[in-house]
Every structure is written in C-alpha cells, then in structure tokens.
C-alpha cells in the first residue's frame, strides 16, 4: 500500500506544451535547419487562409535575417483581415487553439499547433519572445505584442503589449527568432516557388538574408473560401455521434436532417425505419445501445457523397497552368482536375499537371511537386502516397524512362485537396497511403501520361521524318552518279526527286514530240493554290485545260493558269508547241517550291 501511494504521489498531469516541447520532431522542428522552413510554412499558410476567408488578394512579405552566429529572425507579414487584440495571445501563445479544428472544409492549417510551436521552439532555443503586430482595419489601431508560452500550463504569457502606428491598413506580422541555419535555402525557395505555383492569386516577396525574390501574381481572381459542411453520415464514429446527440435538443428526424450533410426527409425516414427507434425520441435521451443502432442504420442507408464543391476549393486546370507558366518555361504542360471522391466519409479532389522540356534538367529524376490543400510538401517524398502512386504508373508505356518516378526533363504536380488530408504524421510532410487517393492519382497520371506520350511522339515523328528526308536526299546524287557510270549514260537531274522527298511542290515542264507538258505536283501535307506562269513563243491555243489568262508581250505569250492541288496530287496542262521559254509558279513559299525545266 505504501508503494502504491508512493507511486501515486509521482503522478501528474502533463501540459500539451510540455508534450510537444519534448516531441518537437512530431511538428517538424527536429533540426535547426528545418525550423526556418516549418515556421515560414506555418505563417504563410495562416496568411493565405486568412486572406481567403476575407476575400482579399494576398500580398505576403517573408524575411529571414541573421542576427547572430546561428540565430535567425523570421518575419512573415500579410495584408489579411488581422486578428483582434484579445485573440492574438491565444493564437500565437497557446497550442491547440484555432478556429478550424471542428470545421469540415478544406483549409491549410487546421490543428492550431503550427505557429504556436514555432513560438515554443524560439523560447526553447533563444528565449526571445515572439513579436506579433496586427491591425484589423483602418479604423482600429495596430497592436504589438511580445509573447511567450507558459509551458507548464500551455497558456500565453504577454511580456509586453502596446498600440503602435502601422502603415498597413489591415494585416498581421509575426517575428520569431531562433537558432537555425540557412543550409536549406534552396528548399526554402522551392517552398515559396511551389506555393506561388498553386496560389497564383498571391504575391509573395521574400528577403532571404539580403537575397530578394519576387513571386508575382498570375491571376487577379479572388478565391472563394470553401464553406464548412455538416458531417456526412458515412464518415462518423460512435463517439462523435454520442456527443452530437447529447448536445442536441431536437427530435430524431430533425436531428438527422439538420446535423448531417445530404440527409433529407426521405433518407431520414429510411434511417429511422432501419434503426427501429421511435421518431418522437429526443436524441439527448438515447442510450448507447440505441445510438449504436442509429449509427448502423445511418451507415446502411445510401446517401449521396458530401457536397465537395462547397467545402473544397480545387485550384482548377487553367490556374494550375497559369501558375506553372509563371514560374517555369516548359515546352509542354497539361493539367487535370478530377471529380471529387470520398474516403471514410471525407471528400477529396485530386488535381495534377505534367510538364516537359524547357529548362528542366534532362538527366535524373523528374521534379515532383506534391501539394496538400494548396500547401507544398517538402520532406519525406519517399514515404508519401503521392510518390508511391506516381511510381506505380508504368511510365515506360508513355515513353518515359523510369526509376520509381519517371526520369528526364519532366515535372509532375499533384494536389490533394480534402476536408481532412490524411498525413502520416503531425509534421504534415507526407500523405498517408489511402487506397482511394492512390487510385485517383494513378488514374490522373495515366491520363496525363497519354497526353505527354502524344506530344512526345508527334515531336519525335516530325523530327525523324525531316531527318530521314535530309539523309535520303544527301545520298541520291551518289546513287545517280554510280548508276550512270555503270550504264555509261549522263547523270540525271535528281532535284524533282529531292523535292518530292523533302515534301515540296514540284513544277515541271517537258516537251516530247511537239507536245508541251506542264505538271505541278504537290508533295506537301496541305492543299496549295498556285498560279502557273508560262512565257514562251507558243500561243497554247489548244491548251488542256484552257489558260485562265493569256497576255501577249512582243513575240511571246504569257500564259497563266490557276490551280488548287490536294496533297499528293498533281495538276497537268498540255498544249502543242516547242517548249522554249520560262516557267514560274506563284502561291507557294519559295522554300517549298522546285521548278524543273527539262527543256532548258
């Protein structure tokens, strides 16, 4: 008994701040280098989310400044709606505090941990309070806070608070200082560039210790923030149902219709029927066994999928291409936004793009850009369902070499948008392996792969055909010469043959037995409209077909025909005469025309 008492005396409650202080790798602060990226990512996510909700075109300033040997000051400032002074300490100084945790809709941040974790990390490594400035509109003053977190209780500690003058009309600025290094600068710039690709409505300016980068806005279209939806009857567990039922003062049917997505009169009746409960029951009075029957009924009845268009905000095919075009110069880009799908009651949409050529590295693995709810995923590429799905595709059948993911000058973008993106860990580096999601990614990759294959084979075919023609033409004169030597005759003119091979228009005049024959052969791939001019002493009165116009200039007749010639066809005119004079053809680009006068 003594012992149990003694053991009991050691028991105590642990604050969530203490927990995460000790387990900082769970939040992406496992290395000093990584801390910078994690902090900027969390702050920028918050800024973009806030602007979206306020329907503002985001204008974000990011700065990283070295203040000591291994200490950096990170600043993120936005033009968002600002945060009321009463909320500031909690938003930045308390873990697990936020507005989006219980909402079912697509958003970047969700858990209310990210930015507070950065504050925690700062006080752990440098002890310097975070500085937050926020202003909610031109009528309000700006407030400046210096904040710490009381680890033992997970409550904010306001070191200093003051009103200040700020030139921003509205917005929020956070400054955090901690031990770190800029070793991962390239990755940081990748993060900003990728963010800019999937948020083409945002302007981001960055000052990375004196190195300035602007990521310009590619679209002035304001993004409509997705709206929260009620839970879907197929995506709920007993625990949540029990809590919802206990809090409601409604009767069963009303509770079902109001409390859940896509449940109407008919569905509600059906659910109640199957559950065997009476419609008159108040839900707050239901026992656990009754709730189980209700849940089972809810999951049996067929209900349409959740309203994805309302709660999800895909980027859109056009916007993805705008974003990519803005940051990369490519020879080819295609994008796809797929229809929404559901996993475990959570709606999601897969979007993807594939790009080729341009300045992409021609060697090595493809550039794979992974996004979840418009946020780039930078770490743990190997552990991510996106990578896995991309690797499952047989890229060789789309003419791309492959080592896991494809290799060569290829860029692949995949965006998973969901009310609840399943991450493998709280540091949100990788999407967990969910069959429904992987399947969608494989499908969109196959679709885009076919597009890329078409592009590549069209490109290759044109190139090959021209090379082939050039090579043949370079050999023809040698063949003609050797053959002539053997048969002991003069070397024939190979230019008509060359023209044919090089897909040109060939005009030929030849006179045999007092009959002049003019032929125009179209070896190009398109129809041509030509005008044939034949100046000679022949009047060509018996021409077949008749000339369209004949002009007499001195002793010569200038004869003119107009002709439309289909590809791989020829036009011919004949008349009685000597065949002297000239032949000329108009209407075809000089590079595409060969005129051969066999009488000359």
């Amino acid at each position, binding site marked *: 008994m003594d012992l149990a008492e003694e053991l009991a005396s050691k028991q105590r409650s642990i604050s969530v701040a203490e927990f995460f202080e000790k387990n900082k790798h769970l939040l992406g602060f496992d290395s000093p280098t990584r801390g910078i990226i994690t902090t900027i990512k969390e702050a920028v996510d918050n800024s973009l989310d806030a602007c979206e909700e306020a329907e503002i075109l985001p204008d974000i300033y990011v700065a990283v400044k070295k203040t000591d040997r291994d200490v950096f000051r990170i600043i993120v400032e936005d033009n968002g709606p600002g945060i009321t002074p009463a909320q500031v300490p909690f938003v930045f100084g308390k873990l697990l505090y936020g507005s989006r945790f219980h909402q079912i809709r697509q958003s970047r941040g969700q858990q209310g941990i990210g930015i507070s974790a950065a504050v925690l990390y700062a006080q752990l490594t440098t002890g310097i309070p975070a500085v937050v400035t926020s202003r909610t509109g031109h009528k309000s003053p700006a407030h400046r806070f210096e904040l710490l977190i009381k680890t033992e209780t997970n409550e904010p500690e306001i070191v200093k608070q003051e009103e200040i003058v700020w030139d921003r009309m509205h917005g929020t600025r956070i400054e955090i200082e901690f031990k770190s290094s800029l070793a991962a600068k390239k990755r940081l710039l990748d993060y900003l560039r990728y963010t800019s690709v999937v948020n083409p409505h945002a302007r981001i300016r960055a000052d990375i210790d004196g190195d300035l980068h602007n990521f310009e806005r590619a679209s002035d279209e304001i993004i409509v923030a997705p709206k929260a939806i009620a839970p879907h009857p197929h995506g709920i567990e007993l625990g949540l149902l029990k809590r919802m039922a206990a809090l409601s003062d409604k009767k069963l049917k009303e509770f079902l219709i109001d409390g859940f997505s896509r449940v109407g009169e008919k569905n509600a009746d059906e659910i109640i029927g199957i559950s065997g409960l009476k419609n008159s029951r108040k839900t707050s009075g239901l026992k656990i066994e009754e709730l189980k029957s209700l849940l089972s009924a809810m999951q049996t009845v067929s209900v349409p999928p959740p309203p994805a268009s309302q709660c999800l905000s895909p980027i859109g095919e056009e916007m993805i291409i705008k974003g990519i075009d803005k940051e990369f110069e490519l020879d080819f880009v295609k994008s796809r936004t797929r229809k929404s799908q559901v996993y475990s009651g959570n709606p999601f949409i897969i979007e993807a793009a594939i790009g080729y050529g341009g300045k992409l590295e021609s060697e090595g693995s493809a550039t794979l850009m992974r996004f979840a709810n418009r946020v780039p995923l930078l770490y743990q590429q190997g552990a991510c369902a996106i990578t896995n799905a991309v690797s499952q595709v047989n890229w060789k059948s789309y003419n791309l070499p492959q080592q896991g993911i494809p290799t060569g000058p290829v860029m692949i973008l995949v965006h998973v948008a969901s009310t609840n993106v399943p991450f493998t860990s709280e540091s949100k580096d990788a999407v967990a392996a969910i069959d429904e999601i992987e399947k969608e990614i494989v499908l969109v990759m196959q679709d885009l792969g076919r597009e890329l294959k078409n592009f590549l084979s069209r490109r290759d075919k044109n190139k090959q055909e021209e*090379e*082939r023609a050039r*090579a*043949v033409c370079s*050999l*023809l004169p*040698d*063949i*003609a010469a*050797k*053959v*002539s*030597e*053997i*048969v002991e*005759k003069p070397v*024939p003119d*190979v230019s*008509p*043959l060359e023209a*044919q*091979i090089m897909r040109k228009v*060939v005009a*030929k005049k030849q006179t045999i037995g007092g009959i002049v024959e003019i032929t125009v052969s179209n070896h190009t791939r398109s129809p041509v409209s030509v005008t044939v001019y034949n100046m000679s002493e022949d009047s060509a009165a018996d021409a077949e077909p008749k000339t369209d116009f004949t002009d007499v200039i001195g002793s010569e007749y200038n004869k003119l025909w107009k002709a439309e010639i289909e590809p791989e066809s020829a036009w011919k005119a004949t008349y009685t005469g000597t065949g002297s004079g000239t032949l000329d053809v108009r209407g075809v680009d000089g590079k595409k025309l060969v005129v051969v006068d066999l009488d000359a």
Partner: protein
Amino acid sequence: MLKKELDEEATKRLKNIAGKWYDQISSATIPYISLPTRTKKNIEYDENSEVWKYGNRETVRSASSAKSALHLLKMAHVVGFLKNQIADNRSSTLREMYYISEGWKRAKFSAQDESNMLVEDLEIITELSREAFHLRPEEDGAAIYGPLRIKEQTRRGEKIIHCQEDVGEAGYPIPNNVNNLELIDHDAKFVIAMETGGMYARLMENGFDEEHNAVLVHLKGQPARSTRRVLKRLNSELGLPVVIFTDGDPWSYRIFASIAYGSIKAAHMSEILATPGAQFIGVQPSDISNYDLPADKLTEGDIAALKAELTDPRFDTEYWRKEINLQLKLGLKSEQQAFASRGLDFVTKDYLPDRLSEMGVI
C-alpha cells in the same frame, strides 16, 4: 556454258540492275529493288526440280529511308565493282571486296556480314551464283575418299585424280569453284557423307569404302557450297545414291536439310545446291533409345531449334515429325561417335549396314 558466255551474261544482268535504277531516277521515282522475302514462310516446294525455292512473297527495298538509300548506294558500288572485275578477268574473296570498299566513302561496308547479304541479294536478282561474278568463297571445301576419278581444270592445267589411288589418307579436297570439275568415271555403289572427321577416319580405318564400294565425303560441319554442289553432281550425273550421316541434334538435321532440300538463306540457288534424292541415315532420335546411346540433355536452344523445325516446310514429313517429337520427348541428343560406346566396329559392322539395307541402298 563457256566461260566467255557466262562472263557476258553476268555483265548483262548486272547492267540491267543499274539500268532500272537509272530509269527510276530519271522519271522522278524513288529508286527501289524487289526481292523475294527470305524467311521460312516464303519457301515452297518446286515440283519440277524437287527442291525448295523462294515463293512469291516480295520485299521491296526503296531508297525512301536513309538506311535503304545507303543500301542501294552500296549495291550500286558492288554492281560496278563486279562488272569491272569480270571485265578484267580477276577474282576476289568477299573479304577482299569488303576491304576494297574502303575506297567507296559512304558506301563502305560497315561489317563483313553486309557484303555477304548484298551478294546473296545479287544472286537472287540475277539468278546467277556468286562464282559467276568471280567471287571466291572463303569456306573450306570438304574431302572425298573413294572409287572415283575426277578431272579438275586448274590455273596450272588439267589434273586427273583418282580419289583412292592418287591421294593420301586425307582424301581429295574439293576446290572452291566446282565449275572446273569433271566427274570422269567411278566404281562406287553409293555416297556416304559424314559430319565429323572422326567418323570419316573410322570408316576409312575399318575399310568401309572398300567393303561396300562407297565414296566417303567429309562434310566438315555445315557443308560449303562447293561440297553441296559436288554431292548434287555425284547424285545427278553419276546416279549414285547419297546418304547423310550426322550427329543426332537439330543443328545436324539442318545440315541434312540444306543438302537435301536447299537452305533458307540460299533457296535461290537450290537447283544447283540441293540434292533432292539425299537420304538421312542417322543419328536418328530413335537410335538414341534403340541403342541406348550416351546422350546429352537438350539445351533450351536445342529445344527451340527442334520446335522451329516442326514448323519448317522442309521437315513437314511423317518421318521427321515422328523423329523430332520423339526427341523432344526423350529430351536427349547424341553425337555420331557415341556409337563407340558399343565398340569401335559397331558402326561399320552393324549400324550402317543395317540402316543401308533398310533404306534399300545395299
């Protein structure tokens, strides 16, 4: 045909090829050449000559791709070279022609195989053998030993040789160009051609040629064209039955087939190269089981070759289907010298006499 006539005919046919191309180029047609398709599917049995020849399928080679255009250019050079060689009364080997092509710039051969293919094409187009163009084969002719007297027209005059009395134990070696050979007289009942030198020497040591009045021919593996032409002539001019004795494996059956039916590669020459009356004496797959011969397992390559033979029109007879299927079932192959496991005299005292009388030869 007299040499002069033959030379004139060959020159004419070469010029014809060039003439066609000349006309094609002059009329703005991309130059091309048609050849019979040279695959197993395009050989047919010719009732008249009793040999297998190319059928009607044609492959057109047109200068519309760089590869084909280069091929035509090379062919034009070869035609020109051969025409001059005939005019100068010189001869050369294929390999020499390959080196001579060094001076042909882009038309230079990239490998020796290529010159060989081109010459085969020319044989098919002109319906003349390469010897008609003064091209000397590189391959070794085989050796003959037996009661036969021949006359050879050499550069150093006519030689009359008896293939038992006037030669050493290695026999009379067949020259490259058998156009120059005349079969004068003989005292033989049949011809037996063997794949290996060991068996040739065994028959000689055991006096098989004397006992049975046999002409022994050592094929030295896949027989050279000259050897096949001599076998053909021994059969058709002297009316001697010809039997073929090889190892018991698919590659050896092809030796037999090339002698009896003509080869796929040289189906255009079947009439002068093939001996339709030649018979296969062994080693038969059924011998492997009947005589319990020492045998090796068939390799994957062997099995594939046997299966290919089952679809080869030349092997489409009841005898061969039965034997090949038996061999596939046994999974074994034996060499002809494997008979030694039953004693050194077994092959000449028992096996061959039995088989020959079974076949009606003795």
